[in-house]
């Protein structure tokens, strides 16, 4: 008798001998905690990015050759512009569903970055990065920074006014690299900015193939490492220990949930793409190097770099009459590298400081590691304040504070506020720990009293 399930299973196993591996995979355990979903959301946003991006690539024209627009958007009709910008106008305004896919792609990128950052915070504050998962953590950091570059390139490809400004600044930062900056800028752009047209196709191949392939590889490695060591878990009750994992198996328990999450992420992204306008490129107009606009805001995940470029005091390394390290290096290169380095080195720094070299499968609650939590909050505050200053034009418009006042205030605040945050958070953690201990003792006492009470009842002694 044929069986709809047994037949394909037999077919596959007879040809691959994979039944044991498949069975193991189906029963892989997932600990049940909402914060574990953040990384999953990033993965699903990545899938949406690949799908929507592939569609966009079918219509996008990676060329800055000049053409004249004769399309449906009246305000730009007759304007000279690049093929690239024109094709994105067509995607947005002429092809049905083009705008939906483009906006969904853009939203997916923003959500992708946001969920990676939140996931990183979860991993940091629960100590999930500790041995034996340092490699998983490092690959995750690489993913974050590679995605940042990927997003920046995608934004820059369009060749509208805003993206051109972003690219001009990127070129300035590239030129600021010590020793190699100038020649490297010429090599990459093929000439001085904005280049003779070769750079667009270089960006394109990087954005649609090289970096996505790298991201996919890193994601694969990241997941393989997670699976090899299994997930970490919180200690919810006595069953959760350092050596025993409690969780819901991939099949049947986890599969429908994960699939539902994938579909929900996609649904939210498409809904955003359909309802909430993002980067209306037809309003910005084509890029020309001699144009700039006030109050231009890049995607949120680049805000911290803009903020750093703005906050950095006017300081160049100058020897004699010659500049060696120009200013954009500090905010555009040194600052993000420092952040990457501190985060990347943290597992080893912590091990040094605490002397704890053992493996950890159980997660800390943030309060359990007051120093780590306090440092994490302080570090996050530092980066966040720089990020906020990247939107200083908005603050300027909102509160009417002058830019100069704001700049001075922020230059002080980015050091003072994190220091305060460290002290306050550390204090808070210790107090929470203290409260936990009191609570534990109270519970123990209660249980003790109950036991005594039960004992008396059993012995039919008079109840007090």
């Amino acid at each position, binding site marked *: 008798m044929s069986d709809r399930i047994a037949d394909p299973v037999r077919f596959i196993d007879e040809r691959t001998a994979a039944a044991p591996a498949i069975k193991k995979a189906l029963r892989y355990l997932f600990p049940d905690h909402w914060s574990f979903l953040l990384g999953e959301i990033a993965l699903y946003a990545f899938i949406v990015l690949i799908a929507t991006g592939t569609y966009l690539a079918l219509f996008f024209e990676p060329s800055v050759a000049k053409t004249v627009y004769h399309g449906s958007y009246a305000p730009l009709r007759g304007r000279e512009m690049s093929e690239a910008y024109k094709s994105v106008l067509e995607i947005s305004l002429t092809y*049905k*569903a083009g*705008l*939906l896919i483009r*906006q969904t792609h853009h939203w997916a990128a923003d959500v992708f970055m946001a969920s990676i950052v939140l996931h990183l915070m979860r991993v940091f504050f629960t100590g999930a990065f500790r041995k034996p998962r340092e490699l998983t953590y490092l690959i995750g950091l690489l993913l974050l920074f590679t995605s940042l570059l990927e997003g920046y390139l995608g934004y820059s490809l369009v060749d509208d006014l805003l993206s051109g*400004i972003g690219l*001009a*600044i990127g*070129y*300035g930062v590239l*030129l*600021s*690299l010590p020793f190699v900056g*100038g*020649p490297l*800028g*010429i*090599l990459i752009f093929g*000439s*001085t900015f*904005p280049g003779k047209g070769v750079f667009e196709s270089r960006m394109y191949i990087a954005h649609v193939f090289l970096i996505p392939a790298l991201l996919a590889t890193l994601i694969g490695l990241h997941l393989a490492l997670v699976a*090899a060591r299994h997930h970490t878990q919180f200690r919810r009750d006595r069953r959760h220990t350092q*050596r025993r*994992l*409690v969780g*819901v198996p991939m099949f*049947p328990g986890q599969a*429908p949930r994960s699939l*539902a*999450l*994938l*579909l*929900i992420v*996609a649904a*939210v992204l*498409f809904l*955003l793409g*359909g*309802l909430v306008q993002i980067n209306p490129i037809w309003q910005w107009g084509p890029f020309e190097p*001699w144009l*700039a*606009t006030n109050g*231009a805001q890049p995607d949120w995940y680049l805000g911290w770099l*803009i903020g750093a*470029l*703005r906050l950095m*005091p*006017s*300081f160049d390394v100058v020897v004699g*009459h010659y*500049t*060696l*390290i*120009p*200013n*954009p290096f500090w905010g555009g290169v040194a600052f993000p590298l420092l952040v990457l380095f501190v985060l990347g080195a943290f597992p080893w720094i912590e091990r040094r400081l605490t002397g704890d070299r053992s493996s950890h*499968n159980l997660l800390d609650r943030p309060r359990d590691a007051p120093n780590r939590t306090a440092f994490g909050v302080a570090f996050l505050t530092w980066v966040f304040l720089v990020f906020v200053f990247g939107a200083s034009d908005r603050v300027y418009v909102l509160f009417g504070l*002058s*830019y*100069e006042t704001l700049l001075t205030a922020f230059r002080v605040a980015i050091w003072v506020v994190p220091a305060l945050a460290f002290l306050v958070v550390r204090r808070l953690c210790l107090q929470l720990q203290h409260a936990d201990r009191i609570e534990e003792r109270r519970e123990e006492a209660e249980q003790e009293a109950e036991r005594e009470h039960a004992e008396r009842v059993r012995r039919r002694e008079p109840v007090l």
Partner: protein
Amino acid sequence: MRAKQLLVTLMALAFGRRRSRDPEQKAREEESPQGRIVPAGEPDRGAELLVVGLLALATLFAAGFIVVYGEMGPTKTLNTLLGVCIAGALACIAAALAVIARRLIVTEEIEEEYPEESPEEQREIVQLVHDSGSRFTRRKLLVGAAATAGSALGLAGLTPVLSLGPLWDTVPLEATPWYRGRRLVDPGGHPMLASDIEEETFYTAFPQGADPENIGSSLVVIRLAPSALKLPHGRETWAPYGILAFSRICTHAGCAIELYRKPRFQPVEPKPALVCPCHYSTFDPATGATVVYGPAGRPLPQLPVMIDPDGHLAAAGDFSGRVGPAWWGVRAKPS
């Protein structure tokens, strides 16, 4: 009406299946040596009905997507409707899955040992490598030779990359299209008359007949009262009638100088200043666009201007310094 019929059909299909399958399942359980793997649970026909309903709704949304795509032109409303349809279909299937996960599947919590290290295998791997290499006697030499060959091959493989652009060439960074006698034209391409340049106004200019996109092309042209000028030594003749021309590209990170305003802070109040909107570098045109505020490290390069016999503006030479963002080794102070 259609939808209802569809629903009924689907329900019939679903329930017919379930009932006919029951005995088979029972037989399987009896056959299996350890009984069930996943614990048994009560059937929940309400939940099944809900799942079918949600899937039907998803079908409607998806069909709606196709209809909307076919019927409407490319407008904002189309975009909205398409987004709502596809999101609706996805969300309905997600909801169906959620119902399945909560009410139709037994969610087990199982325990399992974390994977352990394997010292035995570690040792074997190490031994394997050592044993295999026991016939080599000049290890260092061999490793060195292999590393050299590998690096050489790697370098050779990377060499074609150099065709991407000039290697170690900073000449393009220093080149500008300006030379003595080249006329200034406005964005429309018309030569600019010196007599048309007014104070308190901000003009954009390009070299006549050159590519305006070249980073060294674009200029800001303004006019100040000649008595207000405090240009550096040697530039006395660079600004006839107070007409000044500077490179429009910010020396910080390469944005365009787009603002001409009176800064809010005291020291230069109420003098006009050239401002870059990207990180607010501010330059004082009267002193040769030296930096008065912000992160830029070099003044904006100034272009000496002259007025040719028929009254048009023309360059009297090249810029006072390098255009655009700085790089390692660029001259910081104008020569």
